[in-house]
């Protein structure tokens, strides 16, 4: 609607998994993000931002245990997308 909308709000998450964001959690993130095909979702570490639907991008993020990341989404169902991804981080990607 507006031409100069502010950058999309970010949600902070922490990597709680012992082994960080390796292939399995990354795959879960990609799967979750891909459920929102029309929504742009990014995960940021410092200055480096990656497309949450890209497995390669997520892996190059080097999300080690304890790291704080920021998720942002824009487009339809953005809040829902953020909820879904946030839940994965909170649940340690179902690894215990």
């Amino acid at each position, binding site marked *: 609607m507006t031409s100069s909308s502010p950058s999309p709000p970010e949600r902070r998450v922490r990597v709680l998994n012992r082994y960080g964001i390796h*292939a399995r959690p990354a795959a879960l993130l990609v799967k979750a993000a891909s459920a929102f095909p029309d929504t742009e979702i990014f995960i940021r570490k410092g200055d480096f931002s990656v497309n949450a639907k*890209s497995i390669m991008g997520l*892996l190059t993020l080097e999300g080690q245990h304890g790291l704080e990341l920021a998720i942002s989404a824009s487009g339809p169902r953005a809040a829902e997308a953020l909820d879904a991804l946030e839940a994965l981080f909170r649940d340690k990607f179902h690894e215990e």
Partner: protein
Amino acid sequence: MTSSVEPLPPAAAPAETVLTAMPLAPGIAIAPLRFHAPDEPDVPVRRIAPEAVHAETERLEKALLATRDELHALRTSLGGDSAAIFDAHLLAVDDPDFLARIHREICDGKVCAEHAVARAGAYFADRFSKMEDDYLKERANDIRDVVRRIVHALAAPAAGGGAAVPAVAGPPAILVARELTPSEAMNLRGSGVAGLVVESASPTSHVAILTRALGIPAVTRLSSPIAALPEGAQAVLDGTRGTLTIRPAEATLSEKAREKAVADALRGRLAALKGEPCRLVDGKRVMLEANLDMPRDAEEALQGGAEGVGLYRTEYLFLDGSGIPGEETQFAAYAHIARLFAPRRVVLRTLDLGGDKLAGNLHPGMESNPFLGWRAIRLCLGREDIFRPQLRAMLRASALNPNLEIMYPMISRAGEIDRANALLAECKEELRREGKEFNENVSIGVMVEIPAAALTARDLARKVAFFSIGTNDLTQYTLAVDRGNEQVAHLYDPLHPAVLRLIAETIEAGEAAGIETGVCGEMAGRALYAPLLVGMGAKSLSASPRNLPTVKAVLRALDSTECRELARAALQSADGAATKERCRALVARRAPELLPLVD
């Protein structure tokens, strides 16, 4: 065995040399050493004219399709962990950033598809190989593997699936390689390669998983640089102990050959048992079933000779990141497994998750002890909107298999069974009105995993058609031990007399009410403990598919009286250690050759 670096003697003095290494995949291989020549396709570097960009992009799309098909085919031919390796490759092939980069190379860089793919792949591979984390470093290999596959597909568009990466052919050999891509590992199958020495691979790496799955003995981190190994020299690789013996002496050779023969015979024997029923020496029958976490485990279960599915965990449907699954999604999954095993027994377990694990976090206040919290049947009874679709989906699936059964987890009181059954009855009525088929007499059972349920099993037995004992949780709750807590994990002991007594009481209560009890916890898959469970009266054991052959082999060597005697002694025993010894002594007496397999 020391692990210091040992220099190899010069070739002129062919003495036996034993090198130590880290075991990667068990087994013994006896063959000459051969160095692996890695598959490096020539990647053409061509400039293309602007008009050709469109056609080049189409070439790329075709090759990507072919690559996806190949990877799917490879996935299907494997099971479990091994398939997951190719899942990662599939994700890479579909990765938006990877694809965007390739397209940019073609459109902006005006280069041929092969070069574009190689450059895009190199960008990511380079980033990964520079990472500190070993696991991520290895991902560079995945990308290189995928790039090779796509380049091959571009070169041979007419080739059928699975033939892209050339197989390693030749006479029997122990392959020595710096590294091996998953595709190359797959090609070892039927290639004559008897064993593998890889320079540096972790036990959780793809090459480790695949060599284990393919039954090829392997070692890594040799105590001597692999480049110094004498090509062509006879060697004995022991993947179980982690040794490589170069130019073995006669004595070593015959000893290892004998060991290998015994191991092969054992494996053959277990494989031959696949079609055989699990019958004790006196004819007593025990049903051996599989615990399934995911649909793709079903193949492995059938391969392992499972006579049914004693526990079908439904949680995976709720955990894949796409929210609470609807009735149709669930029905599709249950119908598939029902048909696959029909008319064999399939037991579907209703949702056994906590509110904290479900998408959208149904339980906003963090539970301080989810283990004792709002999960499984408690959550389901509190959230009919989640429970009903699952019950409906399971009922509909019951139309496809007369022996499909439903089981409720974490039952602690009869009231829960009553309420769940009331909901089930309502769902049945709905389905009747809708004209949807289901088995009117579908059997309903419960997991007995809470001590309260075991202690009041007599009352519960009147309300159900069967019991299934979840020994993992039963042990944790009974001994007040969290297995995941490193400080106390050693206190977890399924052979503790208290746990055994609860198991025995449950089975007895069931028998008094005329119902059968099975065991689906980890204990059921331990061949050492299976005789104990059978001796206590368990009618079926459900376990991870890969454990079934050994359980079957052990039980077939025993008779009911011995098992009952073992159980009787165990129930009177003061501690689990003594019981474990008795279990081992029984196997040692009756099936000593199986002892190495039963830990």
